[in-house]
């Protein structure tokens, strides 16, 4: 009987290498991850979230810039300079001006010329030829001088026209920089030139944020138009000094709720430009709409 050589069981079985299978598993995980995050099954093909434009400066100011909350038409302000550039057709007219200006001047220059001419003529009768030559020379000189003057005047006119165009262009650029009313960068009711929100809107928004409205009141907003006006006095540090409900809404629950909200907003998160007394209107419909 021949004895079969004996080995350990593991060597005998030749089990698969675990390291290789670990690598395989890792690859499978990476592939599955790529499949699910790569949008092959429509997982990541979600609609893109809407883009919101917000003012980064939320500082209460006295004279906020004008503007609208609509998205800014970025290309609109640019065409304006183009319009002014379109005025260039008027530029060709300007070169015509010097032409009009030139005629008055030459007569002034030419006028002294005829006076010397009559004098030599009587004396020149005996010797006409020598007198004619100097005349031609002086005429030539005068002509040259006249041409030079005309040339200079032409250059000056062109320079003036260019200066005029430059002034117009810089005017239109400055006009664009000062933000016309239809450019949406500030507050809807703004008329000033400061970057920020109006103190009134700032205080109103803060109080409305702190306002806890009951579901009953929110329901009421659909039925009735409930509105109250309050006078609020805030110090420059943003501290509520006093307040008064000028015209109550008539709805007791709403008025009480408003008082609680104002009391809760006794300290603004940011100071005001100065001590202010503001008359703020609180409309339930507007507040409810903002919360929906």
């Amino acid at each position, binding site marked *: *009987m*021949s*004895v*079969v050589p*004996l080995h350990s*069981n*593991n060597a*005998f*079985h*030749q*089990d*698969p290498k*675990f390291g290789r*299978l*670990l690598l*395989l*598993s*890792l690859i*499978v*995980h990476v592939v599955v991850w790529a499949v699910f*995050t790569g949008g092959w099954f429509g997982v*990541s093909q979600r609609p893109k979230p809407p883009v919101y434009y917000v003012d980064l400066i939320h500082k209460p100011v006295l004279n906020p810039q004008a503007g609208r909350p609509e998205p800014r038409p970025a290309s609109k302000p640019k065409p304006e300079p183009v319009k002014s550039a379109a005025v260039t057709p008027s530029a060709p007219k300007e070169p015509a001006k010097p032409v009009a200006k030139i005629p008055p001047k030459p007569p002034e220059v030419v006028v002294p010329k005829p006076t010397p001419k009559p004098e030599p003529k009587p004396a020149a009768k005996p010797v006409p030829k020598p007198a004619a030559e100097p005349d031609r020379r002086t005429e030539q000189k005068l002509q040259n001088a006249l041409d030079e003057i005309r040339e200079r005047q032409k250059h000056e006119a062109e320079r003036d026209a260019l200066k005029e165009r430059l002034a117009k262009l810089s005017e239109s650029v400055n006009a664009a920089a000062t933000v016309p009313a239809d450019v949406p960068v500030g507050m809807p009711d703004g008329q000033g030139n400061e970057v920020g929100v109006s103190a009134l809107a700032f205080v109103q928004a803060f109080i409305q944020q702190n306002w806890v409205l009951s579901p009953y009141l929110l329901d009421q907003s659909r039925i009735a138009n409930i509105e109250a006006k309050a006078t609020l006095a805030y110090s420059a540090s943003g501290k509520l000094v006093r307040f008064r409900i000028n015209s109550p809404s008539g709805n007791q629950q709403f008025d009480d709720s408003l008082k609680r909200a104002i009391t809760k907003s006794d300290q603004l998160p940011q100071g005001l430009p100065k001590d202010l007394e503001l008359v703020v209107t609180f409309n339930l419909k507007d507040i409810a709409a903002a919360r929906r």
Partner: protein
Amino acid sequence: MELVLNAGPVVKLVLLILVYFSVVSWAIIFYKQLVIFRAMRDSERFLDFFWSKKRFDAIGQGLDHYRHSPLTVLFREVYRELAQNRRQTEGQEADNLVADLGEQERVARVLRRSTTSESHRLEKYLSFLATTGSAAPFIGLFGTVWGIMDAFHGIGTSGSASLAVVAPGISEALVATAIGLVAAIPAVIGYNHFVNKINVLTGEMDNFSQEMLNIVQRMSSRVH
């Protein structure tokens, strides 16, 4: 992807642990699938081969073709035991392997030991699958609870309880539970599947052991 990247450090750590569990679990599933598939295939073939031969020598020569079967190991160990015995009682015929009563005991012990070692070999790494199946959901849950705690803390800090503030934090936190389940479900399914297959193989080993003991006993009684 964004959910994972935006999660807090604790949730990220939990996710990392769960990914580790998942990767290793799948590696074990592949490993076990190969080992058990080969073991079952070779066992079936080996039994056919075993019953087709009448001499242990002939069977011993062809063991290399069925090396993945646990039954092959049982036979090989018994064969080695009998061969050692033969060396001690030299001069006898090659096929007349004498087995006395003590020898039967030794063969029975060898079979029990081999069965145990083969069972252990087949069950290797299965405990990791069981651990993954039971612990991964809890680890994921821990990540979720921590993430929700963080989200609520954020709500407290921002002072707003709107859905826009609450939802992202909770959504990020729930990813941990989802990944925990993703790791645990295949592990549990794999564990149950492999335990069932190993039970079948263990039953085969027991049956084969009984057959081997019977054969050795018959040989012994024939000699006496």
